[in-house]
């Protein structure tokens, strides 16, 4: 019966309660949607990175990771690639020759990573080919074709068919250089990547640095059918290649180890938005406290009467507490529902940020964001709303308990 009174009390002052409920639901909508948006952006950034180049998992010679010298290659890599391809989760595998290099035009030079790729194979692993904004992804008749990022092209002041000179260290340690012609210019969502990555055919780079490209490779990139399979496949690969790992022949790393900053930044933004939700809840709690105080002050005589006829302080406390929880939870439920709705819809359609995409691209974000959130999160926020309500109820409930029944019943309404 106390529960039913508490619930009905919520609706005594319909407008006031609706305003609080509205504030709670909009506050939550704002906080949760912001969180989902941030997470969507983070996920987008990770996805962009995975699909544009790093893939889910990479294999290297451990010494290469230390020195960055291409002489530390993975030997007999084809056998390794074949084994990896046997896993059902694997979408595609690419073997690349990679070297630090200097790319120079007539105007200027820039330090870059030069990636020697098997053109057809690489199309399966990374989506650079689909990001061509000028020219093509190789496939011209030219010898020594290069595909470079838009940002780098601007920096070097080169266009399609322009010549650039790539200076690299050979496997034996000598400095050598080769001339390449620009076959295509790409533009990903990550301009930091674009300015520092040049793609050439694997054979061309191998010839330049003296690598046995039929048997050796610097990097094996493994793209999976789904990002969430990364951990599982990583485990499998580490099992399969346990011997080679032990012998120091290869090292296997997932994307978040290859680019830890990516994950760190994402975790940070998510933590920040969580903090943001907490601030919103705190702000809302003041609204809840205020509303409940008003409700209690208005009902002084009624509360006096309840105490007079024998309602214990504990029951009275409980009644006000429950009323606060009902009020807050109604707003919380509405807020969670609205958030769910907004996130589900925009999660499908995506949010077009192309208007501000230029700035975002330099941070490695795509121009379409798909807000997303783990379902557990709704429960967590729901729990937080209840906790907030409980805390917010304490002060008004105590105020009610402080009333003296004799005085409360005399109180002028």
């Amino acid at each position: 019966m106390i529960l039913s009174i508490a619930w009905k009390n919520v609706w005594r002052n319909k407008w006031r309660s609706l305003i609080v409920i509205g504030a709670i639901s909009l506050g939550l909508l704002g906080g949760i949607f912001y969180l989902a948006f941030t997470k969507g952006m983070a996920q987008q950034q990770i996805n962009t990175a995975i699909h544009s180049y790093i893939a889910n998992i990479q294999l290297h010679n451990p010494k290469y990771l230390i020195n960055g010298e291409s002489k530390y290659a993975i030997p007999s890599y084809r056998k390794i690639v074949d084994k990896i391809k046997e896993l059902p989760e694997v979408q595609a595998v690419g073997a690349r020759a990679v070297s630090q290099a200097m790319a120079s035009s007539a105007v200027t030079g820039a330090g870059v990573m030069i990636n020697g790729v098997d053109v057809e194979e690489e199309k399966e692993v990374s989506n650079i080919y689909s990001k061509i904004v000028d020219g093509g992804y190789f496939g011209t008749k030219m010898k020594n074709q290069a595909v470079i990022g838009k940002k780098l092209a601007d920096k070097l002041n080169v266009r399609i068919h322009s010549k650039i000179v790539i200076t690299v260290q050979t496997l034996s340690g000598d400095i050598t250089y080769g001339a390449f012609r620009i076959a295509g210019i790409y533009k990903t969502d990550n301009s930091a990547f674009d300015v520092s990555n040049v793609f050439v055919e694997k054979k061309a780079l191998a010839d330049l640095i003296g690598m046995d490209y039929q048997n050796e490779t610097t990097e094996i990139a493994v793209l999976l059918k789904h990002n969430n399979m990364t951990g599982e496949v990583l485990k499998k690969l580490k099992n399969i290649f346990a011997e080679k790992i032990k012998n120091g022949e290869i090292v296997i790393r997932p994307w978040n180890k290859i680019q830890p900053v990516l994950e760190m930044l994402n975790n940070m933004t998510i933590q920040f938005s969580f903090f943001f939700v907490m601030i919103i809840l705190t702000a809302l709690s003041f609204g809840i406290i205020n509303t409940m105080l008003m409700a209690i002050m208005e009902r002084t005589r009624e509360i006096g009467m309840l105490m007079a006829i024998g309602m214990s302080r504990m029951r009275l406390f409980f009644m006000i507490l429950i009323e606060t929880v009902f009020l807050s939870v109604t707003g919380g439920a509405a807020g969670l529902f609205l958030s769910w709705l907004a996130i589900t819809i925009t999660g499908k359609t995506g949010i077009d940020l192309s208007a501000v995409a230029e700035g975002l691209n330099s941070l490695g974000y795509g121009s379409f964001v798909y807000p997303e959130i783990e379902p557990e999160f709704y429960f967590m926020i729901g729990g937080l709303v209840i906790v907030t309500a409980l805390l917010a109820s304490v002060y008004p409930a105590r105020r009610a308990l402080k009333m003296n029944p004799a005085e409360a019943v005399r109180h002028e309404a």
Partner: protein
Amino acid sequence: MEIIKTVNLQKTYAESAVPVRAVNDISVSFDAGEFTAIVGPSGCGKTTLLNLIGGLDNPTSGEVIIDGMNLYSLKPKEITDFRLKNIGFVFQAYNLIPVLSAKENVEFIMNLQGVPKKERDERVEKLLEQVGLKDQMNRRPGELSGGQQQRIAVARALAANPKFVLADEPTANLDSASTNNLLDIMLKLNETENTTFIFATHDSRVMKKARRLIELDDGKVIADKTN
């Protein structure tokens, strides 16, 4: 049989500039089955006396003995429980919980007492019948007239099965017809069920029907007559 006795009861409000002796050394006793009005001009201490008898306030000195037990020797929590089980209250206004129906209002007190549902239903029905509002039982207080609300309050007070009912100016907001109707109901309950009623009032319509009048002035009993 004596059920209530006050011994040198005193209540002084000290907060005001000049301390007010609202109840000034009152020793009076009440028997079961009384139909008594405490009367006197506004400010003479009627409400204060009634509140002290009802365990709603703390006396400055003196005692309230109910059924041989010193009420204010109990802890506050125990006094609340005592009120719940032994005293029925009717106030001038705001007696009822506005969000509950008439029936639920009467039932509420039994709910607090932990009376089982079936028994509650039976009692509610009987009480509403006695106050003549069985047909209005699903209405909320806001949908009832002032007189009807007070009759529900009487039913609610009796639902607790109290030793006595304290009513502070129950008719102050009622017209003559409603007042007479309410008084007749209470008189009838007094006669048939032997329910003890103690009123604080300055309403002559109540005084006329009361069997005993205790007249206060300045916190003191100046007359105590039985009609």
